[in-house]
Each structure stands twice: as C-alpha cells, then as structure tokens.
C-alpha cells in the first residue's frame, strides 16, 4: 500500500514539476482561466465559456509548438562559494556565453537538482517537523510530508531565475540565489534553460547536465564560551607533533651526556665545545589543558531532529571554545572512530566544521565503541563535553567512568524525554536548545 502511495506521489510530483517548469506566470493564469471557462462553459447552449476555453487552449498549444524548436547554444559555468552554512541564503552566479549568432531574450537559467525521490522506508521513518501545523487532510494524505522529504533530500531551495537577455556571441553573468535547508553536500545535476514562447504562456525547457556540489556547514547557535576548569594533563610525545613544527616544542628539562641512539638534532653544540664531549638536550613532555567534545552519533532514524541539533551544538562549541591556550578534541564514531584536534596549530575550526557537515548517524550499538574510544583518551583530557541523544545505562556508565578519572564532565542531552535533574547534566529540547544553552554560557562563563 505504501509503495502505491509513494508511486502516486512520485507521479503527481513529476507532473507538478513539469507544470511548474513549463508554464510561465502568464501560463498559470491562462490555465486557471481555461479551467474556469470549462466549468461554466460545459453547456454551450447557455454559456460562451467554451469560446474562452477554446481560445486559451489553442493559444497554449500553439505556444507550446514553438518550444519544440528551442536549441540554445549557451555555454554555462556555475560559480559557487566554497561552502556555506545551513539556513543561509547565498547569491552566486552563472557565467553564460551565447555561442549563437542571435540574442537570446527572455531566458531563465536555473539550477537543476534532478529528481530526488525518497524511498518508502525513508518516508515511513521521516517525522515531519511541520506535522502539527498541517491540517487534517494534509496529515492524513501525507503528500506535504512527502514533499518535505524531497526538499530535505535536495538540501536547498532555489529562487526563481532572473529573466535575462544574452546578446549574440557575448558572455554575461546571470545572478542566482539559493537557500540551504540542511548541512551536508548539495548536489547539482545540471541547469534548466527556459524560454517562453511568442505568447509568453509556455516555456521551452532544456536540461544541460553539469554536476557540481556545495558543502553546507551545520547551523551554529550563538553560545557563550565554557570554562570547563580542568587541570592540565600529560601529553605524550608524538601525540602533539605539530607543536614542534610550530615552535612550541616540548618543555626543556636539562642536559645529559650523549647516549648511542640519541638524535643528532638534540645535541647541544655549545656544551660539547665547552666540555669536549657530546651533550644532549633533554626534554620532557608538556602538560597541557585538553578538552574533549564527544558527539554521540549512535542515534536511530526517528531521532533525526535530536541528532541534527546535537551536531549544531557541537559546531557551535567548536567555534566558540578557546583553543589558544588549550586543545579541543572532537570525538565521534562514524564509519570508523574519529578524533580531530583543534588549537595549537592543529586542524582549524573550519576544517572540523567541514567534517561535521558530513557526519552521519551510526548504528545505535556504536555507543560501546565511542565509550571505549573516550576512555582510551581520557588520561589526556582535562575536561569533556558529552553531547548525548539519550540517557540510558551505557551512557550513564561512560559519564561515571570519566568522573571517576577526575575529568570535569558537562553532559548535554538533546531529547524531548524528561530526565531527572542532576548536577552538570542539562537536557536540551531539539526545537529550542538555546533556552538552556544561553543559561549555560552565562552560568559557567
């Protein structure tokens, strides 16, 4: 039954897309007028509606005939920014070159995302965020929900293209605008070139394939920086190699006699000159403040909104927490265990945001892998922010383990389920996380 419904939605959607692309604004009015005229003119003896219907029908058909001869010779290049943030509107442009010997008037160039049809499983599990706002009929039929899913798969809304004229053998910049609606990659399949017929009713539409993509970073909330108040921890040699590259180096501890196997670069040449025997500079690893930002990706499909909010919170703190005097590790489980370090010459926050843009949900039982990864690195951590999607036994155990190791832990649980209040554990509603986050920043900061 669900397959049949999805099939019907698909057909209807394709028809509506065809209608949307092939008719101009004038065309919409013409079709509306045609239908009204048909309604009142069905009896030709008592109304002249059939005359209006006939006139508009013939005009539309003849205008459509002209679309058959539309063969644009345009060279189009899409010029996009490197990345953008979810929810932002960006202005970009097409560089269009008219290769033909005549000007192209009234044309519109739009990006084409292709048909992003959701599967029946995705439709079943998708929770429509606007469900409560919809009327009974829409909720029952489910087509708006299905459309919402198509929009989500597309990842962005395109604004209607600007009508433009491109002179013969000339290049021109055609502006375009899109609004992203989710993080991740927005995939472009090509361009749609539209040109209305002589009557301005029917658009001739040509699809030009040209794949492209735009990286959309997660939305960020205006959070205040947190003071996790952890003590500096021992950082083993090799765990922070970039500090050496950047000149920070390990802490100088003293001099000692050369022993076979010591690196030549550690020889203290001045002391060798004074003493006449090789002397080696000895270092000891630096103690640094290092925080962890642990993202729980072990979320089932129905908690999509919770997961996305969690990512946005993680992105917000990655950009806000001070990494001048400390390090910040982002730890999560994706296709494998990941740990990215920010600060002290490590990865920049932009690069980590790019990673966060593509993070996907993992299997619900991956929480064990995450727990073991966090525990493994816990001796380097001074403080830790845990972004969890629920508060079950396994997650409670992980928090207890970290607290047992005297790591300052801040737990943020993104859920709609009520949880018993506990110190340093905050429950955030995915619909309005700022309600808690704003207080959190002020309280701690």
């Amino acid at each position: 039954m669900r397959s049949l419904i999805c099939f019907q939605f698909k057909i209807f959607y394709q028809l509506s897309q065809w209608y949307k692309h092939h008719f101009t604004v004038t065309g919409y009015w013409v079709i509306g007028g045609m239908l009204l005229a048909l309604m009142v003119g069905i009896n030709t003896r008592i109304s002249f509606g059939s005359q209006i219907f006939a006139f508009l029908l013939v005009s539309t058909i003849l205008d459509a005939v002209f679309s058959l001869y539309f063969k644009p010779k345009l060279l189009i290049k899409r010029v996009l920014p490197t990345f953008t943030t979810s929810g932002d509107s960006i202005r970009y442009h097409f560089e269009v070159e008219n290769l033909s010997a005549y000007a192209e008037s009234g044309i519109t160039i739009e990006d084409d995302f292709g048909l992003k049809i959701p599967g029946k499983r995705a439709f079943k599990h998708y929770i429509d965020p606007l469900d409560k706002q919809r009327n009974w009929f829409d909720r029952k039929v489910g087509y708006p929900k299905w459309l919402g899913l198509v929009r989500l798969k597309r990842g962005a809304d395109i604004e209607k293209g600007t009508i433009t004229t491109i002179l013969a053998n000339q290049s021109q910049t055609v502006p375009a605008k899109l609004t992203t609606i989710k993080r991740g990659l927005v995939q472009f399949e090509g361009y749609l070139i539209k040109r209305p017929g002589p009557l301005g009713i029917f658009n001739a539409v040509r699809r030009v394939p040209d794949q492209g993509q735009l990286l959309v970073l997660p939305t960020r909330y205006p959070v205040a920086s947190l003071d996790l108040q952890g003590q500096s921890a021992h950082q083993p040699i090799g765990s922070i190699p970039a500090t050496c590259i950047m000149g920070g180096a390990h802490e100088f501890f003293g001099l000692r006699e050369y022993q076979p196997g010591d690196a030549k670069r550690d020889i203290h040449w001045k002391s060798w000159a004074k003493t006449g025997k090789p002397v080696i500079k000895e270092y000891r690893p630096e103690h640094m403040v290092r925080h962890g930002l642990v993202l729980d990706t072990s979320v089932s499909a129905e908690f999509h909104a919770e997961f996305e909010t969690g990512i946005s919170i993680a992105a917000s703190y990655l950009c806000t927490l001070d990494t001048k005097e400390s390090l910040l590790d982002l730890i999560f489980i994706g296709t494998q265990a990941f740990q990215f370090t920010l600060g002290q010459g490590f990865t920049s926050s932009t690069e980590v945001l790019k990673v966060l843009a593509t993070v996907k949900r993992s299997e619900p039982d991956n929480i064990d892998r995450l727990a073991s990864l966090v525990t493994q690195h816990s001796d380097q951590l001074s403080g830790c922010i845990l972004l969890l999607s629920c508060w079950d036994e396994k997650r409670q155990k992980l928090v207890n383990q970290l607290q047992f190791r005297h790591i300052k832990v801040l737990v943020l649980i993104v859920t709609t389920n009520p949880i018993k209040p506990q110190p340093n554990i905050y429950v955030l509603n995915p619909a309005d996380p700022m309600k808690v986050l704003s207080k959190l920043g002020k309280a701690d900061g």
Partner: protein
Amino acid sequence: MAKENSVPATLLSVTFLLWGWQIGMWFFTVIFSAVIIGAPYFQWRFHLSEKDLHRMVDITSLLFIATTIYVAITFPPAQAVFVVTQWLPVILFPLLVVQLYSNIKAIPLSALSMHLRRNKRTCKTLDMSNVLFIMCLVAASTGNQKSDYFFIAIFFIFSWFFWLKRNPRFNRAIWVLLMPIILFCSHLVNQEIGQFQRYLENVAPEWYLKFFSAKADPYHRSTALGYIGELKLSDRIMLRVKSSTPPPPLLRVASYNRFGGDFWSARTGGFEVSTFSKPQTTGSSLHKISIMMDLDDGEAVLPLPLGTQHIWNLPAETISKNPLGAVKVENGPDISMFNVAYDVSAATQYLPTADDLSVPSFYHQVIDEFIVKYGLKNTPKAQLMAKIDQIFTQDYRYTLNLSNGFDQPVNQFLSKTKSGHCEFFATSTVLILRRLGIPTRYASGFAVQEYSDLESLYVVRAKHAHAWALSFQNGHWQDVDTTPPDWSILDGGPPASRWITDMWSWLVAEFDRLRMTEKNNTIPYWMIIFLLPLTWFLRKKFKGMKMIPWQKKIPQNPHELTPLLGALRQYQVERQSGETLMQLALRAQAVPGLPEKRLLIMVMKAYYAFLYCKKENAETTDYKNLMAKWLKVHNT
C-alpha cells in the same frame, strides 16, 4: 508578485466593460472602471495593517458565502453556478481596491485562509488584477447574449493581453501571424465542443439531461423504461399550490403523442403565442388556484391543470402554447406566483390526430393478448377506464426497484414482471387504449397530494413527478391515472431531516414572496437588513484607519539616466538585476553598432561623480551634457 505581471488598468477596464455589456451590470461597470482608471491619479493611499487586510478578506469571504447561500436557495443548481460566477467580479472587487488604493501591492496568499494565517508558511502573493481579469471574462461568458460579438471581443482582449506578455525573442511578424491562426483554430475547437455536447446529449443517460437542461422539454421525454435498479427520488419542493377548494390532483407539464420504444416525443406544429387573458367558460365548473414556482432564467414549461383557460399575475414577455397543451413562458421573472383558472369539462383544446392512435408494431401481440385476457374488447367505453384501473391495481404492483431490462420493457411489464413505476402504467394504458381505438396521449407532470400545515398550502416535491394517460372521450380530453393509488406511500417515508429542509424552504419561499412584492427596480428595502449591520461593522472595524500620501513607485533605474537606459535597450542592452551602471556600460562596449562607446563610459563616470562626490553644478551639468551628447549621436 511582481508589478510587471499585473494587468494594465486600461485593459482591465475594457474587460469590465465587456462583463457589464454581457451581464447588463452597467452601473457597476462604470463605477469599477472609474475606480481602476483613477487609481494612478489619486495621490493618497490607505495605510492598511496586516489585520486590516485580513478584515477585508474576511468581509469578501462573507460576501461570497452569503451570495452563494442566497443564490443556492433561490435558483436551481445549474443556474446558481452561473449567477454566482456573474457576481464574482463584484464580490472580489474590494480586494482589487485594496491593491490599487493601499500600501498593499498584492494580496498575500497567507491572508486567504485562517490556517495559513496561523502558520504563515507562504510568502506568495496573488495579483488581484489578474484574478479580476480572468473572472470578468468568465463571468461575461455566462451572459449568453447569443451574438458573435463576444468571440470577437475576447479575441481582441486576449490579443492585447498576449501582446503585453509576448517574448521579444520572436519577431513581431510571427506574433501577428499567429493571432489569425488562433482565431480560426479556436473557432473550430469551439464548434467541435458544441458537436461533442450534442453527441453526449444523444447518448448520455437521463441524469445528464436533467442536470444540464433545467427546463422541461415539451418535444421529447426520456423515460426510465428499461432502467434496472432503484430510482432515487428527491424531497425538494418544486411547486406550491394554493387553492380554496380541493386542488386538481394532477398538474400537467407536457403531453406527448409518439412512442419510440423507451421515450415519448411530441409531433406538433410548434408553439403559438397565447394570451390566456380571460376564461372561455364561467360558472361553478371554473376553479381557481395559485401556483408558486421557480422559472429557470425566466423560462419554463408550466405545470397546469387540464382545461386551463386563464393565467394571470405572470409578468412574462411571452406565453405560448403547443397543440398538445404544453404552455411555455419566456423572459419572465426568476420566481413567480401566478393564478390559474381551469375548467376540466371544457378541456377540448385540440382534436386528436392519427398519431394519437399509433402503437409500435412490436407491442401489438402482447397488448392484444392483454386485451383478450381481461376481456377489454367487449367492455363498454364508459366502464373501460375503471376496469383498466382495477386490473392494474389488483394484478400489478408499483415499485421503484426496476428489473424489466432494456428489451421492450412494456412487453415485459405487461406479461412477465407485472411491476413498475408510473411511466410503465401510463405508457401501457396509452398503448392499450390506442389498440382499443381510443385516441390517447402520454402526459407528464406532478401529482398534488401533500398538504403542508406549516405553509397552509399544497406542496409538490420532486418525488411527486408523475406520468399518466390523457384519453379523448365524450368530446374532450380526460386524465386517466392507472398507477396504483399506493404509489406515493411506496415512494418511501420522509427522511428524519425533512422538517429542517422544509422549514428552510419555507423561509426562502417567504423571502421570495417578500421580494416579489417590490414595486420598483431600485434597491429593495429588505437589503437594509443586511446593509445596516454591515455599515456598522465596517465603521467599527476601520475606524481610525489612516490615509498616507502615495509614494510613487521608485523607478528601477535612476531617473536621471532613464533616457540613456531606454536608448541602450534598443541595442538589447538591458540592465540586469544587481548590475551596476558602470558594469552595464562596460558590457555595452562589446555590442556591435553601439555608437560612442567611450562617451558612454564617460557618462557613467560623471554620473558616479554626481552621485557620490556630492559636488554641485559642474559635475551635474557634466553628466547631463555628456548624456545629451551621446543621445544626440544615437538619434542621428
């Protein structure tokens, strides 16, 4: 919606003129056209808040709902659709006024529904000039003035509309060539639609005819003979009959003389104007009744008692009668309550013809067997009607659940099923009497049998539609109704909700009676019932609304350079959205045939200096001089 997608004021006014011409609402047309044309000259605009706009939409919606309800209860369904459509331009006009005379330039779709208002999910707008343009044309089409001028008018209006919307990519000659082709093809398509309708009418079932042809057809009568299944009957009140004496049991709409197997038709000499101005007989045999009914678009075939001699209080332009007794009115009021005087004994009217004795050959055998079986041949004529009536009452059964099938249904009725509805009884009676040599016709109309205590008169419902025979005996036509008398009971009892519909129908009828008492064509006094609270409501709601000076539309291009940009457009150099003037000038450098390209750059530089350096006189004069110089070169 962008302003360039609006319909220009002149075109919209012309469309309103067409509507006024077709519908005959010149009063509104003149006012509306003046309002539309006058908008650019009116230097003030109403400042409407979102709440004010919602109120205006609500008032329009209420107006639409009230009109729809009123029309639905006043007119038959097929006509009601037309009446509402004709009034739609008037109902929607306030929203166009909002768009023309306020700070709101297009009606947001979110304002049109409470649901969208709550959620505010859409930012799309509706341009009322387009809505009214389409609505006026469609409404005008329902006027049906029966002339070819309408087609010519819509051709010119749409040509104008499409000229404004045309794509400049195409040569104007193509557009000009296209229009006659559209005119010719659309004329052909229109004719084909008419042909298709005629084809449908020939093959379609009776419901089609009933729905689309509200008027009774005095020439042709399709029957449900041969229909299988249960016939559904309506409780809708069709007529009201007032009579001080017992009313006539049957009101005939039309009678027919030729039977075609499953339909009756009338072969007559057509309708002739008849005055019915005075009764031909006087005395105690002359009875008087009053009938109240709806006339579809002022036209109807009247349900009248046999022997109708005089009709009065019916302000119709034409009353005509055909030789079979059907009386038709044309150009009358929409609702009428007229008086009838009749004398059953004087119902000679037209004499019988050979058609009144013809029986299709395939019915001969079964009818002859019936006559022999019941010994009708030897029955005296005086007792014949009573005997046939007795046979049908005793041996035959009235039912609406039909199972006779399509193959010679009367044969099956008489010899096999012995059950059917009034059309079977009437048709069989006609055929039997004709075989016995008595001229007989088939009559259709209504049976008057229900007295309404609520209204103190007789009501005739759609379910009381009836068929019977008319036989010519003793020098005059007589009603012969052989349908078993229990037919009205077997039609099924009234539904539980009927008292509500009856009450509503009565209120509407009383309201109509009130309207009919209006003497003049001016605004009737009952309109005050609606106008007073509406005025009070509007005054209260819009009290304190401000008028603001109209800030004319800021031109998209700086007005100082408008002549230059207009000239550039001739070289197909149009300023794009977001393009600076200098970018435009640089782009124009590549355009072949453009004169003085360097001078163009200099104009722009001087204009920038004027705009941003804020120096007076010298630079201002400079860019103006330079522009004039460039335009001079361009013009030469």
